[in-house]
């Protein structure tokens, strides 16, 4: 199971772009990279998933370099409502699917 390392916390201001990087040096060939967002008193929510290069949806972008040993979640023009904990998970949900959550990154967006 791939271990992930993320910054414990980050601060930002409204309107800025936020990039959160996750290291996963022992990622396996068939592992996917998935990011989740968690607000207080709620369960984590799926944000975005990718395998390589770049993925973009209506919420975020995910950048994955060729060696796949890291990934960067990019949140464009954050607002106060983006204040949350963000988790990076690496693994394959079709193979036992028991992925290990890391500590996550607590993002604080200030006015």
């Amino acid at each position, binding site marked *: 199971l791939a271990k992930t390392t993320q910054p414990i916390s980050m601060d930002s201001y409204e309107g800025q772009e936020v990039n959160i990087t996750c290291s996963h040096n022992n990622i396996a060939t068939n592992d996917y990279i*998935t990011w*989740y967002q968690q607000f207080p*008193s*709620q*369960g*984590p*929510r*799926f944000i975005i*998933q990718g395998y390589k290069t770049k993925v973009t949806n209506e919420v975020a972008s995910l950048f994955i370099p060729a060696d796949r040993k890291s990934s960067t979640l990019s949140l464009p023009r954050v607002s106060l409502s983006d204040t949350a904990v963000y*988790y990076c998970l690496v693994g394959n*949900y*079709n193979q*036992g*699917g*028991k*992925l*290990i*959550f*890391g*500590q*996550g990154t607590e993002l604080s967006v200030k006015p």
Partner: protein
Amino acid sequence: IAGITQAPTSQILAAGRRMTLRCTQDMRHNAMYWYRQDLGLGLRLIHYSNTAGTTGKGEVPDGYSVSRANTDDFPLTLASAVPSQTSVYFCASSEGRGYTFGSGTRLTVV
């Protein structure tokens, strides 16, 4: 609305008592999971089930048991609750792409 329903939302339980946390999904996902979340420790996997009729142990299974009699339900049982099991419990399901989580059960063991 499709998703995962957990019950109860919160519970205060006396130590030594038996408690079952309920989890039901309506998405027909094969895989289901139970996590606990404690401040400073993140989410830790308790038990999982890849399909109805099978279960497996996660990182912190001691003191907990699960069953998976059908696709939709995945109850978590604490046979004899202890204060260290005070936590927020999340149930999740997956069909190969990512997890869908429930809204959690806040359990306090006193």
